[in-house]
């Protein structure tokens, strides 16, 4: 606990992007059984930055979705550093709709610097792809549990994170923009990154206080990258706990609770 307070937001941001930090595939192999990865958006192609699978979680059939980052430069190039294209978001939505059809809860793992910002992404409707995911995830009648396992980069993260329960690992971050981007835009000074990370309130503890996430999941001493299995064990227990709670609720309650949860987000003033 004392250590927690000394870790500043920028250090956590750096930690959340650590190359050895467990990614979606690491968690999947420790948490689920009978895993079958499924590919393609049935329209354009298969996005290697977005993982989708069906599996069992302690016997319960589930759909698993997550951004893919690699532990090596080569693996990261192959998965575009976790930056999904529109076809990645469409693949995720195709799997989520199928999950609803077969009554499978959805478990997502969020780990992206943001959605891809290239020419192809624009040509294929990155904005629309994310927008449809937000609207349609919010309308699903099956339980959704999302965990920010590393970097929660803006709309690209939210595109698979409109969940009944949003969990966040202790050293993960979740923000509308990177600290550097924030400092560049608002202060015209990218070197004020540390201050920006603090101001943005992007750490798990900050976001819990703001009501944006539901739970902070502790990591092994020093960070999840030091012990993948221990990190996965703790996360599994917490996903299961939330899932068993959500499985008690009927479809309409699942929808309504998710709607109400996001409905309350935001802080504004009433004047006159």
């Amino acid at each position, binding site marked *: 606990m004392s250590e927690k307070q000394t870790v500043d937001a920028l250090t956590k941001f750096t930690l959340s992007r650590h190359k050895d930090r467990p990614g979606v595939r690491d968690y999947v192999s420790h948490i689920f059984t009978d895993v079958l990865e499924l590919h393609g958006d049935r329209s354009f192609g298969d996005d290697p930055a977005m993982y989708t699978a069906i599996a069992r979680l302690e016997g319960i059939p589930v759909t698993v979705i997550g951004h893919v980052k690699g532990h090596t430069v080569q693996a990261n190039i192959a998965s575009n550093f976790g930056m999904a294209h529109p076809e990645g978001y469409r693949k995720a939505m195709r799997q989520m709709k199928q999950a609803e059809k077969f009554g499978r809860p959805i478990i997502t793992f969020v780990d992206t610097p943001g*959605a891809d*910002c*290239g*020419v192809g*992404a*624009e*040509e*294929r*409707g*990155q*904005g*629309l792809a*994310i*927008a*449809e995911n*937000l*609207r*349609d995830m*919010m*309308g699903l009648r099956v339980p959704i549990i999302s965990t920010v396992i590393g970097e929660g980069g*803006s*709309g690209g993260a*939210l*595109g698979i994170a*409109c969940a009944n329960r949003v969990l966040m690992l202790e050293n993960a971050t*979740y*923000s*509308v*923009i990177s600290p550097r981007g*924030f400092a560049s*835009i*608002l202060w015209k000074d990218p070197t004020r990154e540390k201050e920006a990370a603090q*101001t*943005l*309130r*992007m750490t798990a503890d900050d*976001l819990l206080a*703001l009501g*944006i996430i539901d739970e902070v999941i502790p990591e092994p001493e020093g960070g999840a990258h030091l012990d993948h299995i221990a990190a996965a064990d703790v996360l599994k227990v917490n996903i299961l706990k939330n899932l068993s709670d959500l499985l008690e609720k009927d479809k309409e309650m699942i929808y309504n609770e*998710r*709607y109400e949860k*996001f*409905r309350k*987000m*935001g*802080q*504004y*003033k*009433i*004047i*006159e």
Partner: protein
Amino acid sequence: MSELFKDLFKKAQYITIPDSIKNLPDSKKKSKEEVSSEPKIVCTKCKKEVAPDKYAVALRVCPHCGAHARLNARDRIAMTVDEGSFEELFSEITSANPLEFEGYTEKVEKLRSQTRLNEAVVTGRARIHGEACMLAVMDSTFMMASMGSAVGEKLTRLFEAATVERLPVVIFTASGGARMHEGTLSLMQMAKVSAAVGLHSDAGLLYITVLCDPTTGGVVASFAMLGDVILSEPKALIGFAGRRVIEGTIGKKLPEDFQSAEFQLEHGFVDAIVPRAELPEKIALIIGLSKGGEAR
């Protein structure tokens, strides 16, 4: 057709010219006094001069190049709705400062007195060529119409009210995206508003978006692209990522028309590009043809 134009010309006279000129991007550097003492208007796109009275009658569309100048919410509403039909709703909502970001409260207060708006979106009930609807107009003179908690709340309430009253929603979008000053709370507005769009849609109701210059970032990645029918003004900039961000990513310059309304039409993301003068008529036409929806 001639009936329509007569009506529009009449309405155009209500537009206050100095207010409009003030908001032209090119006149940003000039003080108010300089602008009001200067009778000529220069088109921001082709840089040619236009006489102010002609410009007003043309609804601030350049007669030389057809560029549609950015409009503030007040002018847009005057040009769009049936005279006297607009009833503003949720105007009491304005921004708080949840991250205690230095200077943000002062900035919002200054803008409130300058623009006489309480937030970057104006929401209310209106009639457009006789068709009742809920209307939202984003105003880029208010912090680039970025979406923070207040904008998200107003839009969500608008969709919820429209669902209860079984009315279509029409939104004129223009935005720089999520409002950075409110951090992740701004990001969450994208999910909140999109959920309300879904609620309204599931009730079998119509949602029309009119994408205006510029519509970008988190607004494109949420409600702007979710219209049943998506219209755009000619040459509007519409895109997810900023031009400089993309150029930085790919390491080269992008073509001039990249992310234009015409680009989006060509790629299948916009239903139709409609010149400003024809928008009210087209919106009313779409509403008239879309009344048979039932709840899912």
